[in-house]
């Protein structure tokens, strides 16, 4: 093993720094603290799928306590062998993709030094955590609050065959989490620097990135930031990218990409497509434009000048559906029918991460819902308004349809009460529970909040949160505080149990009764002098005593009869949510009631026509409701849903039997 000497590394880094023209200035006023700044020179060996890099980090301590050490993520070591936390947690499987155990990968720091008074002081690497995805160095000189440290690092990457986010497949290279990267210093709490877990994503500080990558000339490269310099050398080329106010840098390289570019409101949309999916370019473009427009109106105009969408190759889908600053990976597939809107949904979702992750940069390891959950909520809004709420995921596939919110409910109702939303991502009982609690339940919680506040107020509240959270590391407590301020009322009693607890809510119609009004017995005090009611109502009695024929006639005119009705609505589960109730009567009129959800039940009484139908939450404002099928009551259901469902399934069975004939 050959290790370059520190002097050589330092020489190379300083030489590049000196020789470099200045990159462009993108934002006159920094939007973020810019306390973790990276300059990286990397060259890719596309045959060995390996990379060599020199890295210089300028880090500023923005906490109140001095830093005596520095912690780094070496994420690619998740794929180093079967003993990594990631591999142990995954069993070699991420999402539905299988790890190829002949293609391990790693990130190796071959030299690291701190620059102290112009001199490079070598630092000793240790691995204090469970695996080598976390590296620690004792600083040569502690960094006081407000002080700055500079590191020079030489590193080597071996990419795994792609199965979780980063890796290669043939000549396709997805470079995510590929360089030694600082954790987040949290003052007295030390460095927040977790191992690369199966179900966790990432956490880092904002900064400026200057990255130059050297690849074969024929390769198309997409990267975070903007390309500002390109230099050819022999059969390779070096591309220099510059990004400001971001907290990560990813890039991709492949000779096969079909490049499509469009501009939308001064934002350059760059789609790097697999040739086989060429036909889906308009779908990606439309999705990004739609999302740019919606997020821009709802939250804040997209501040960066470019967004790149990368389409992974067939079999490389493990790289798909991932977000990096100003670069996202989507997922098209020639074998998925057009009526399944996954490409749109994934593109909208990953774009949304530019806001929830990219700018509002919460700790994804510990509170994944703040990015995945809030972003999924916005994803459902974009999709539902673009298509329609009941067909925004599946639109007519063999006559079936599914909306985005229905898909989230499907995920949630399977594991509603095992884990809470706020939990470090590796502590969930299962991958399904992590997904349900980080994506689905937050969508339902926020939709429910939207139902409580109304859409205009909801928009105001969420925008207020985003504006405060952008370019910071917001927490769940920040969310509760800021949204409560914006809502003008304390949302904690409503939201805290939903976010920190495992309680559920299930409204149901417990009882509906409609009894014919009682004939008055005793004294009728409305006349003077009071008379016994029997006498006052002789005519009525006479009519009633005429017997069954008469009664039948009365039944034929139900609207004329009056009933004393009572409707009892029950709330099961621990969550208290206000809800609306629609009560419809036989004469076609209806009443809308509201219940604050306090107590276990509420009852409504009516004097008038018979009750025909009761629906709790008629507008679906409480999608968190665990069971919606018990939300209503009808006097006479037509039986249509059961008939239709049975007919569909019968078609399948009959088709199976008919096919069996052919093999007899």
């Amino acid at each position: 093993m050959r290790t370059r000497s520190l002097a050589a590394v330092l020489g190379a880094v300083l030489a590049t720094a000196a020789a470099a023209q200045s990159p462009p200035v993108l934002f006159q006023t920094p939007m973020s603290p810019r306390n973790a700044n990276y300059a990286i020179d990397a060259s890719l060996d596309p045959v060995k799928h390996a990379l060599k890099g020199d890295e210089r980090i300028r880090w500023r301590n923005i906490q109140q306590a001095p830093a005596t050490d520095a912690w780094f993520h070496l994420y690619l070591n998740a794929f180093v062998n079967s003993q990594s936390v990631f591999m142990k947690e995954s069993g070699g499987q991420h999402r539905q993709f299988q790890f190829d155990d002949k293609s391990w990968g790693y990130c190796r720091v071959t030299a690291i030094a701190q620059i102290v008074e112009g001199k490079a002081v070598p630092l000793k690497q240790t691995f204090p955590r469970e695996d080598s995805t976390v590296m620690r160095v004792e600083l040569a000189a502690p960094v006081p609050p407000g002080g700055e440290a500079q590191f020079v690092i030489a590193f080597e990457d071996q990419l795994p065959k792609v199965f979780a986010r980063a890796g290669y497949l043939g000549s396709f290279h997805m470079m995510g989490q590929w360089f030694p990267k600082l954790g987040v210093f949290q003052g007295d709490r030390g460095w927040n620097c977790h191992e690369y877990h199966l179900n966790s994503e990432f956490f880092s500080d904002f900064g400026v990135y200057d990255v130059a990558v050297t690849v074969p000339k024929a390769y198309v490269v997409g990267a975070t930031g903007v390309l500002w310099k390109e230099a050819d050398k022999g059969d390779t080329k070096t591309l220099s990218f510059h990004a400001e106010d971001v907290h990560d840098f990813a890039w991709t390289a492949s000779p096969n990409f079909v490049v499509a570019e469009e501009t939308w409101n001064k934002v350059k949309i760059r789609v790097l497509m697999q040739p086989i999916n060429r036909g889906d370019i308009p779908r990606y473009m439309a999705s990004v434009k739609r999302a740019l427009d919606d997020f821009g109106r709802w939250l804040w105009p997209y501040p960066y000048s470019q967004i790149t969408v990368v389409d992974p190759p067939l079999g490389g889908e493990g790289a798909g559906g991932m977000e990096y600053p100003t670069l996202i990976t989507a997922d098209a597939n020639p074998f998925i029918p057009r009526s399944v809107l996954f490409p749109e949904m994934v593109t909208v979702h990953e774009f949304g991460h530019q806001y929830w992750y990219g700018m509002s940069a919460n700790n994804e390891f510990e509170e994944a819902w703040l990015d995945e959950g809030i972003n999924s909520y916005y994803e459902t809004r974009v999709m539902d308004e673009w298509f329609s709420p009941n067909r925004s995921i599946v639109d007519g596939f063999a006559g079936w349809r599914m909306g985005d919110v229905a898909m989230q409910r499907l995920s949630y109702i399977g594991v509603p009460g095992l884990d809470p939303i706020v939990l470090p991502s590796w502590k969930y009982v299962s991958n399904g529970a992590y997904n349900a609690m980080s994506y689905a339940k937050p969508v339902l919680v926020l939709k429910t909040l939207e139902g409580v506040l109304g859409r205009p107020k909801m928009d105001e509240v969420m925008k207020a949160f985003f504006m405060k959270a952008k370019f910071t590391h917001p927490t769940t407590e920040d969310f509760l505080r800021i949204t409560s301020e914006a809502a003008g009322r304390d949302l904690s009693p409503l939201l805290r149990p939903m976010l920190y607890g495992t309680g559920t809510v299930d409204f149901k119609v417990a009882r509906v009764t409609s009894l014919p009004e009682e004939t008055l017995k005793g004294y009728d005090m409305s006349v003077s002098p009071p008379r016994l009611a029997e006498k006052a109502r002789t005519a009525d009695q006479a009519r009633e005593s005429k017997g069954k024929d008469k009664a039948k006639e009365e039944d034929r005119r139900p609207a004329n009869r009056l009933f004393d009705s009572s409707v009892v609505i029950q709330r099961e589960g621990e969550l208290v949510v206000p809800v609306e109730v629609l009560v419809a009567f036989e004469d076609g009129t209806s009443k809308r009631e509201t219940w604050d959800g306090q107590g276990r039940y509420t009852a409504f009484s009516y004097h008038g026509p018979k009750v025909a139908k009761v629906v709790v939450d008629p507008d679906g404002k409480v999608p968190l409701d665990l069971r919606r099928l018990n939300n209503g009551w009808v006097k006479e259901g037509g039986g249509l849903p059961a008939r239709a469902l049975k007919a569909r399934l019968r078609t399948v069975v009959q088709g199976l039997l008919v096919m069996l004939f052919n093999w007899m």
Partner: protein
Amino acid sequence: MRWMSSVKNGFLCGRGGALSAALFYLEAFLLSSMALAPLGAGLHRVLDGSPEALSLASGGGADLLGELAFNQPGLWAAGFGLLPWTILLHVVFALVLTAGTYGLAASDEPRHPWGDFWKGALRLTLPFAGVLALNVAGWGAVTVVPAMALMGVAKAVEGSTSSAAVWGLVAGWGSALLIMAALFKGSLGFGQARYTLSGKEEGFGRSLLNGTAFSLRRVVPAAGITLLFGAGRFLAFWGLYWVLAPGFATGGRALASMVLQQGAFLAAAYLRAAEIRAQVSYMRSWDELARRPAVGAPADSQAPGALQPAPALDSSDTLL
């Protein structure tokens, strides 16, 4: 061209074919109705009182189906409880009906289709049960081989950049599979046809071997007939699931789409009856039994001199 006139004979199937097709269709219709009666009752019990369930009627409400799965675990188990028995029953019925159809197709007295049908059913059902065993193996092949093929294709297209290469691979694997399936199914079918035509003079096993030899000697027309009817059924099912079924999603068209679906099933039943009659007709046109060639006999029987006119079907048999 013999095979074309045989296919024509299959399609112009007369009263006998109409009877077979009607029986095929009715049997599947009645059995599937029976199989799902408990499910229907269960669904009515849990859905009729719920206004929320309406979205299920139009192909939506995936989350409500999820609720049913999680909150009514017994519903599906009880609802589909009859399904295994139905399939078992169907296998028996299908054997009897298929045997009857072969018998009827081979019959020289098409004036009594009902009687011929049952004569065929009585004579052939038991031997044809042997085909069932072969079919189990065949089914194994048709599930294992495509699965392997699919894995092969997935592996082969991994990282592939050219659309032409990917679709070429898919088409290549697909047609190879199709031809295999057609040969397998055609061999069984011509074996059955041969046994039906041979009277009691040839054992069933021998008939299957001879049928296989027959379809291998005339591989293009034999596989062609099978593929032709297979394509017809594929079109019926494709139309059923991709063109007709979406009618479910729009309330007003639900009934129309259901009627059309039944039409597609009827078409599939008719195609099956026609396929059997075409096989029998093609087998008979070579009149091999008259000369009784040994298994694997040289293909000289295909020489023009050996041709014998295909016996025309009785005119009353081509009414339909």
